[in-house]
């Protein structure tokens, strides 16, 4: 595990166009291989935090550094390369409805320009790991909610993305599904990847190698 900083938010201040202060003085740092779970009530800014990390929104003041680079609105190429290092599940992230499960999973590899053979190898590995072998040629509309989430997990992991952002992963899930998703998150958390999980519900048990934070009043505690 390296101690390379992959996420660093420093004194982030952000308010919406209606004047609501989302973040007042937000500071957050995540080293490579570490994971964090951020709890917060609805409208506390959890999804906005995800948007900051992928360069979809920018702080009014303060800085967002991802993989050692400062994200700014005019640095389109940097934002593109940062996004390619991030896997996303839930919230903003969903599957491409016109692509099959296999096409959705390999999408990050296509965007990275990986070779076809490597794409196939990784696809098979992901389909096997997430028990999706029978769904490879199915379109997202035919999937159950769990399968949909699993495909997103597979997509977030296929290109060995070093950071995975997960938005409300377990909201409204039945106990069996909850266990399955929790198991995958635990697996990822101990595999050396970094996870940033935002959730409004407390997890039933603590994820390994993961620090917990609470997002309230525009800051983390």
């Amino acid at each position: 595990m390296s101690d390379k900083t992959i996420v660093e938010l420093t004194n982030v201040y952000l308010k919406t166009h209606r004047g609501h202060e989302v973040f007042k003085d937000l500071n957050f740092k995540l080293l490579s291989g570490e994971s964090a779970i951020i709890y917060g009530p609805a409208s506390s800014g959890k999804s906005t935090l995800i948007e900051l990390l992928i360069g979809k929104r920018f702080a009014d003041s303060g800085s967002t550094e991802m993989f050692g680079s400062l994200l700014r609105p005019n640095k389109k190429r940097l934002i593109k390369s940062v996004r390619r290092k991030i896997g996303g599940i839930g919230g903003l992230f969903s599957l491409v409805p016109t692509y099959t499960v296999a096409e959705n999973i390999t999408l990050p590899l296509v965007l990275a320009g990986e070779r076809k053979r490597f794409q196939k190898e990784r696809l098979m590995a992901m389909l096997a790991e997430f028990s999706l072998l029978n769904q490879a040629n199915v379109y997202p509309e035919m999937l159950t909610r769990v399968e949909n989430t699993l495909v997103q997990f597979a997509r977030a992991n296929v290109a060995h993305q070093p950071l995975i952002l997960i938005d409300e992963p377990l909201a409204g899930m039945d106990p069996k599904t909850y266990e399955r998703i929790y198991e995958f998150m635990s697996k990822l958390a101990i595999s050396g990847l970094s996870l940033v999980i935002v959730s409004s519900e407390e997890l039933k048990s603590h994820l390994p190698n993961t620090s917990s934070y609470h997002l309230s009043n525009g800051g983390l505690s």
Partner: protein
Amino acid sequence: MNQFGHVIKEIFRNLYKNPGTSLSAILSMTLLFLLFDLFWIAADTSDKFYENYLSDLQMEVFISEEYPDSALTILKNEMKNIEGISSFVFISKEIARSKLADLVGVDLLVGYDSLNPLPESFVLTFHNDVLNSADLADIENQIVAQKSVSHVYYSKNWLAKAESTKNIITDVGLLLGILIFFTVLVSSANNMRLTAKTRAVGFYQMRLLGAGKLLLAMPFIIEGILLGALSAGIGWGMIFYWKDKIQFSNFEIMFPTLEELGLYCLAAGLLGLISGYVGIRRLLRL
């Protein structure tokens, strides 16, 4: 699948998933291009018709009675120096009398040989580049300035009317061209936008995963080029299919050369490229 393969697959996916939109794009563009093609043929044909008539245009220069024959030599020399005159033929009183007899069918001057009132004249022909109102008027002025010339005649009014008609055809063609350009652009861009809108969620996700704008736009741009060039090609294909079936005996229908057609299809493809980009542009923002 590499990125090139992805782009190709996306083009086919667009066509396969939205056949109605693609078909409507092709049909509407073909119709518009066909309209433009027909006008192009009409304009070229009328141009050729006009050129043929003009090449036969002659100017008659009538000589005053009171000037001696030596004045004719001076006039001939002057006319040789006027730019644009390709030839001139002298028409003596006798030749004029014979021409009149040919025209009327009877010699009206029998018995009045010494009183032939017909003037002597020169019939002038011109190089093609001066066969227009302005240059011919200029030549006319230079000739009329000669003392031995009584007056000059040529189809001035017909020429002015023909030129004005030609200008109107050119203006209408230009207007039609501009109208068709924008109609094709707007209609094709809207078709692209419709196709792209059905995939807005996909674009959004791909942007979140780090897809570049070019990668997302490229299938639509290539599709635009293909649809534009194909529509232009279909239009000409239809015209050439009917070409041999329609013929006129009194004038020749002018068709563009293969080179011009190639350029035209290329331009149509370029128009499709712009439409493709305009159609997708807004959806690429993130």
